[in-house]
Structures are given as structure tokens and as C-alpha cells.
């Protein structure tokens, strides 16, 4: 009765081919120029390098969270022995493969933390706790000595990147070796290691989220923070996987091997993570709002006042209410034309989430330092050419990293033992 099962990839092109080289060149040069331009322009806006570094951090967190989400996607597919996702898994593997390059992009952030202590400068650049005056007067002495200090921050970051480097390489390389020899025991090995890998992933992401974004407000704390960071990253990863698939198919790569059933499942997960992110964000907010303890509400205060109230409402509508309704209908989730708009809008909101986390903290930090007697003036602008160039630059670099990593190699695991299952995947 039913059609013969498809057992092999039928697309004429399953790789970027020659296009990858030019995209790497274009993305790499364009990205560096734009980030350089943003840096240069920052000298002419209020608060100079500090405002550049904040925007830079927003973009870094945006892209690293997406790549980490993709890494988790790969791990969880192996852990659950998933069959449906084989045809789209390579995209996530390559996205996770960009983590080592993102480590290079971490250098400016690391410098902002380490350099002042080497040169003895007390200038405020990005993390408030770097300022010795602040850490000695405000922070608990233990916390400054054993956690929030430049050396340990650098050591921990090295550990995180080493772990993610190892994980992302392991799964990408094994999967590619399988393309060559079709050895199904490679899948067995990857499945075997997936459970400890998830553990390593969880431990590193928990502390990375504390270090990189929660510690922007050094005296604030929230135990749910890593889950919040993770939830947003997963949403970003699913949107990016969909976006890359749409782009590739538009260029005639991957053909009909990726079907609307795959899109349907990916968008279901997108919908799920819209919901999950909202659940986590709401839980954090309601508990802090309800208990109303000053050391916790200080984080929401600047985000609910001085114009940021509108930003918070935008996040509520754009990251929760509207996408919840607009990603619910099945027909929409299966429509490629619709998904173009949906995932771009969702990625914009995910970016804005990080913007909302990082930027208000700059204002708070300036005020806090002013109270300590280091008056650095008041930050003025919100979104200008520095922000635009920095984002575009990092996005181009991400494209370059992705294309460099993809090269002219296949973008579908050609000989995965469960490929047949994925190629014939149908959502009932």
C-alpha cells in the first residue's frame, strides 16, 4: 500500500561546496571590520569602551547560548536514541563545533577582567566586581577571595571552554568518521558517552551562567539563573537550526531530505521552549516580587523603571504571549514560509533577552561606583551604531565560523544507522 521506504539521501547537494570558502572570507573580514568599527565608534559615545564591552557581551552571550543549545541538542539525541532527528543533527553538530572559535571571541571579555588587575587600573569596564574598591567595600570578603576574582574567573572560563571543546569535537568528529566508514558501533560509543557528557555540560553551563551574566550584578543571586540561561539558549538553538535549514534548502542544498515533518518537530520543540523559558522567567520573577526582599529586588528595580519597563513588557509580549499563540497552530508550524518570519522574530527576542539582562546593569554599576566616590558620569544611549555594528559583526563572524566548520563536507550524517528512520519520518 505505502510507498517504498527511502534509504539514502537523494539531494544532489548535501554540502556547502565551494560557497563555503567565499562565505568564510566574506563573514570573517566583514565581521572583523564591523566589530572594529563598533569598537572605534565607542570612543565617541558616552562611557566609551565600557559601553562597547557591554554590547559585545550581549552578542557573545547570544551566540554562545545558541551554540551550547545546539550541543545539548546533539547530546540529548544520542541519549534518547532519537531517530527522527538524524537528518537535521549535523547542522546542530556544526553549530556546536563553532564553540572553539567563540572561545576566541571571549578574549576581549577576559581582558576586561584580567587587564585592570595586571596594570593596576581601577577603571570600570564590564564586571563591577573587578573594581578593587567595589569588591573590598561591598562584596563579602569570602566571595571576592574564592569566587569573584579575575584569576579564578579566567581559570573557570578555561575549564568551561575545554569541556565544551572536547564534547563538541567528539560528537562532530565521530559522526563525520561514520560518513566515511558507516560503522554503526560509532553510534553505540556516542550513545554510551552521552550520559556523562550531559553531566559535564550541566556543571559547566551552570557556573558559566553565574560567571558571565549573573555576576554582572555582583551582590544579586538567583538559584534558577542557569535554567533561565539554558532555556533561552535552547530556544535560540532550535530557531537557528530551523533558519539554517531554510537557508540551505532555499539555495538548493539538502533538497527534500529534510521534510516539513522535520520542521514540524523542530517547531514543536521551539514552542516547548517558548513555554519553558516563560515558565522559568515567570517563576524567577514571581518569587522575587512576592517575597520583596531588597537584596533580590535590586535586580528587577532597574528593569521595571526608567524606561526599561517598556523593555520588560516587550519581552513579556514578544518572548511569551505572542509567540505562544502564533506557534500553536499545526499548519503554521509546518509552513516553511511562515517559519522564516517566526524564527527570525524569536531570535530577535532571544537577543533582546540578553540585551535586557546586560544593559540595565551598566547603569546600575555606574551609579554604584558613583556612590563609592568614583564618579564616571551617567550612561546615556541605549541603541545606536555601536550596538548595530557589534551585532552585525558578530553575526557575520558566526556565519564564517559555521561555514569554516561545515566546509565542503556533508551536512547530513550520510551513513547513520538511523538515517532511514529519519528520512521516512512522518508526524501523525
Amino acid at each position, binding site marked *: 500500500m505505502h510507498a517504498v521506504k527511502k534509504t539514502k539521501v537523494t539531494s544532489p547537494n548535501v554540502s556547502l561546496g565551494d560557497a563555503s570558502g567565499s562565505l568564510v572570507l566574506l563573514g570573517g573580514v566583514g565581521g572583523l571590520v564591523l566589530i572594529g568599527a563598533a569598537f572605534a565608534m565607542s570612543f565617541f559615545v558616552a562611557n566609551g569602551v565600557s559601553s562597547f564591552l557591554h554590547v559585545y557581551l550581549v552578542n557573545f552571550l547570544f551566540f554562545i547560548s545558541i551554540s551550547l543549545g545546539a550541543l545539548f541538542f546533539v547530546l540529548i539525541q544520542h541519549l534518547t536514541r532519537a531517530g527522527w532527528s538524524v537528518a537535521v543533527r549535523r547542522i546542530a553538530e556544526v553549530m556546536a563545533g563553532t564553540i572553539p572559535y567563540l572561545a576566541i571571541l571571549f578574549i576581549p571579555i577576559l581582558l576586561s577582567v584580567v587587564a585592570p588587575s595586571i596594570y593596576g587600573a581601577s577603571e570600570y569596564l564590564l564586571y563591577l566586581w573587578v573594581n578593587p574598591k567595589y569588591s573590598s567595600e561591598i562584596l563579602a570578603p569570602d566571595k571576592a577571595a574564592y569566587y569573584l576574582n579575575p584569576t579564578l574567573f579566567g581559570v573557570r572560563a578555561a575549564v568551561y571552554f575545554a569541556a565544551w571543546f572536547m564534547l563538541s569535537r567528539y560528537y562532530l568528529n565521530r559522526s563525520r568518521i561514520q560518513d566515511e566508514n558507516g560503522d554503526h558501533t560509532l553510534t553505540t560509543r556516542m550513545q554510551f558517552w552521552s550520559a556523562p557528557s550531559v553531566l559535564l555540560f550541566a556543571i559547566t553551563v551552570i557556573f558559566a551562567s553565574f560567571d558571565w551574566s549573573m555576576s554582572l550584578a555582583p551582590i544579586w543571586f538567583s538559584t534558577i539563573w*542557569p*535554567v533561565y540561561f539554558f532555556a533561552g539558549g535552547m530556544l535560540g538553538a532550535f530557531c537557528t537550526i530551523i533558519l539554517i535549514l531554510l537557508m540551505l534548502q532555499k539555495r538548493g542544498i539538502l533538497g527534500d531530505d529534510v521534510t516539513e515533518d522535520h520542521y514540524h518537530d523542530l517547531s514543536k520543540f521551539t514552542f516547548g521552549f517558548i513555554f519553558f523559558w516563560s*515558565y522559568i522567567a515567570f*517563576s524567577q520573577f*514571581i518569587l*522575587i516580587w512576592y*517575597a520583596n526582599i531588597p537584596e533580590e529586588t535590586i535586580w528587577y528595580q532597574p528593569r521595571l523603571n526608567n524606561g526599561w519597563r517598556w523593555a520588560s513588557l516587550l519581552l513579556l509580549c514578544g518572548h511569551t504571549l505572542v509567540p505562544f499563540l502564533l506557534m500553536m497552530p499545526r499548519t503554521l508550524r509546518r509552513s516553511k514560509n511562515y517559519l522564516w518570519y517566526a524564527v527570525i522574530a524569536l531570535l530577535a527576542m532571544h537577543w533582546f533577552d540578553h540585551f535586557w539582562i546586560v544593559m540595565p546593569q551598566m547603569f546600575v554599576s555606574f551609579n554604584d561606583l558613583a556612590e563609592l566616590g568614583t564618579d564616571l558620569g551617567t550612561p546615556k544611549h541605549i541603541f545606536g551604531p555601536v550596538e548595530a555594528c557589534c551585532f552585525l559583526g558578530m553575526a557575520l563572524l558566526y556565519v564564517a565560523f559555521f561555514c569554516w566548520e561545515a566546509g565542503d563536507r556533508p551536512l547530513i550524517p550520510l551513513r547513520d*544507522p538511523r538515517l532511514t528512520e529519519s528520512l521516512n519520518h512522518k508526524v501523525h
Partner: protein
Amino acid sequence: MATTIDEVYDNTWDDPRKRSPLVTGGLDYGQVTSTVTSIAEAPAPPRIWYILMAISLCLLGMLGVLLLHLIVSGVGVWGNNNPAFWGWPIVNFVFWVGIGHAGTLISAILFLFRQNWRTSINRAAEAMTIFAVVCAGMFPGVHIGRVWVAYWLFPIPTEHLAMWPNFRSPLLWDVFAVGTYATVSTLFWYMGMLPDLATFRDRAKNKWKRMAYGILCLGWTGSARAWHRYEMAYTILAALATPLVLSVHTIVSFDFAVSQLPGWHTTIFPPYFVAGAIFSGFAMVITLLVPARAMFNLQHLITMRHLENMCKIIVATGLMVGFAYTIEFFIAWYSGVKTETQTFIMRAFGPYWWAYWTMFTCNVFIPQLFWFKAVRTSPIAMVVISIFVNIGMWFERFVITVTSLCRDFMPSSWAYFRPTYVDIGMFVGSFGLFMTLFLLFCRFLPVVAMAEVKSVMPHGDEEHH
């Protein structure tokens, strides 16, 4: 690749080239039906059923007597006293609500994730969910003191009562959350059972049985149209039940976390409670199903692979809970807030150290044994570990509820909580209620969702497309 005889009986192998079967022993459709229906059709249940039922009824009777004593004498018969006004009743409530999470997770969330292995275990797990929620609901119900005005919990307009429940109180949200969850879970369970109840009706030899099952199955015909609507309703209920699985324990966690009490007020509570609930729920499913499958010869339907998968879920959620414990400790230190730090040190090294380390050992260390396949595939080992998990999860709620209350902001009111015999008796008695309901379910209703199992059997799957 040909399927070997061994693979028909042992389905725990993990070969990426093909999926292992979900029904072993080479059973066909007819044998699946007869395996399940034979439990209810047998003239008498196995002797062990009578022994267990007798024990359960004794415990249930004890619960009844103690409830009467409580209502007649007042809540003073419990150990609750200043400053620990929430003692065992709330601990037991949270414990049972947590147990009641696995069933709906299996039938709703695993359904949406297309985890076909859920079909053999979902029915029994859902039944267990509902019975656990019954036990859970009892405790706050009698905790209010004057049980005859329990309806005051609901916002019912009345002339006599010049007040409304406080809508800002998470305790009221609990009434809605648990009430909704109980309603939807029961509907889901019952609706899913209709085709199987019809099978019972069709096979019934006795007129009264036929009539009883006929009423229960609402005149199910098994026509294509009925099946079509059934599947639509199932999907809709699954989608509705999914957020409910999260919401119930989230609201229960709010009971604690919206307050300002150190040890209660922390933002990780909602997802951490949900993970703990799934953890304890699956442990209870294993504790019940391993003996049940042996008692009723269901080994080919509830296979080793089903049990192994549940063990994996236990180790995963156990680690989530373990991470939450550790992060709470870390953040208590990181926050630099003295009361927070002191509370956590007190929990681990203060007067309740024994409860804390029982919790930690049972929930975090012992389930790590499930990393070994030999343990994951040994029915005895998994039951023992699951019982430890349930002990650990009870102690988790005890640690949260009692330790934080006993060391409040005023050192002069600090005290050491001691339960009375009524506390202990009611908790033990609640197992009697739970087991009585579960044993009745096993005897009279379809323990395995026959229709769903058939849809994931290999020949069924091929015809399906």
C-alpha cells in the same frame, strides 16, 4: 538481520540498527488481550493478593480511626506546635502529590514525545497517580482543623461567611492546581480506558459483569469514527495535561518559596520540585509494577526494557535534584546572606543532620547505582533502590518543611519537632488507602492499555501506515 530467539525474550539490547521489541515472548494480539483480561476474568486472584489486601485494609482501618480521633479531638493530637506549625501533614501532602506526577508524565509528556514504550505502563502509572492524589488531598483537607467547613477553601459566595479566600495566597492556588490536576488526570485515565473496558465487556461471561463494564465503557463500539474521535481527544487531553504536570508541583513549591523564610525562599524551587516529583513518581511506579508484573504474569508486556528506561529516568531526575541541593548550598554561600548560609549549615550539621544526610544519600548517592546495567536490569535491585528513593524524597520534604520552621528568625522560639503516634499512624495508614485502591484497580480494571500496546507491536506498526 534476523531476529534471534534470545532477542525475543531479552529486549534490553541497544543496537542502533534496529529497535528492540516492546512486547516479548512472541505474543500476538490475541495473547496480549488474554494476558491482560485473565487478571479480571480469573475466578479468584492469587493468594498473595488477598494477603496484601488484608494488610492494606488493616492500615486503612487504622487511618480511619486516627482520622476520627483527629476530628473529634482537634489538630493538637499532631506534633505540630510553635514554631513548626507545618509538620508531617504537609510533608505527607507534598510527598503524595509528588508521587502523583509519574502517571500523567508518562501518559501525556511521553505521548507527545512519541515514546512508544510508555504504552505498557501508562495505565497502571495513571491509576497510581490518581490514588496518590487522593492520599495527598486528604492531608491538607484535615489539616484545616474544622473539616466540616472544608468548602471554605473554595471561593463560594455565601451570606453567612463575610469573607473570601485570599486570592494572593499560594494555598488557595494549591486548591485550584491540585483540583484541576486530579480532574484532568482522572478524565484522561478513564477516557484512555474506554476501548479496554469494552473488551472486558465483550469477553464477560456473566450478565452482571457485562452490564457493569458496558456502562463503564459508555457503549464503546470500536467503529472507525469512534477511534478517530478517541485519538483526537487523547491528543488534546495530553496537550492539556502537560502544563498541568508542571503546574501542580510548581504551585506546591510556591507554598514555600514565596515566603521569606531562609531555606524556603529560593528561585530554583519550581523546576526543582517538579524534577523531584517525577523522580519519586517513577520510583513508586517501579516499586508497584515489579511485584505486580510477577503477580499477574505480565513480564512480556511490562518488559525489562520498560523497567530499565524508568531506571534511567530515575537517575536523570535524581541528578537534577542533586544539582539543585548543591546549587542551593553554593548560592547560600555566594549570596553572603547570613541567615541563608546559617540555615544550610544547620540543615547539614545541625540537630537535623540525620534527616539531611538520609535525604542526600537516598536521593543522590544510591540511585547512581543505576549507571550499571546489571543493576538496571535486576528487578530486586531496582525495587530496593526505588524504595530508598521514596524514603529519600519523604525526607526531602521533611528537611524543607521542618528544619526551616524550627529555626526561624527568633532564636528564643527555636524548638525541636517531634511527631506523635497520630502523625506516624496517619502516614502509614495513607499507604493502606493507596494500596487498597491500587489492588482493587489491579483486580477489576485493565492494568495494561491493551489497545495501545497492540498499536506499537511490530506487525501492528506495519499495517498502520
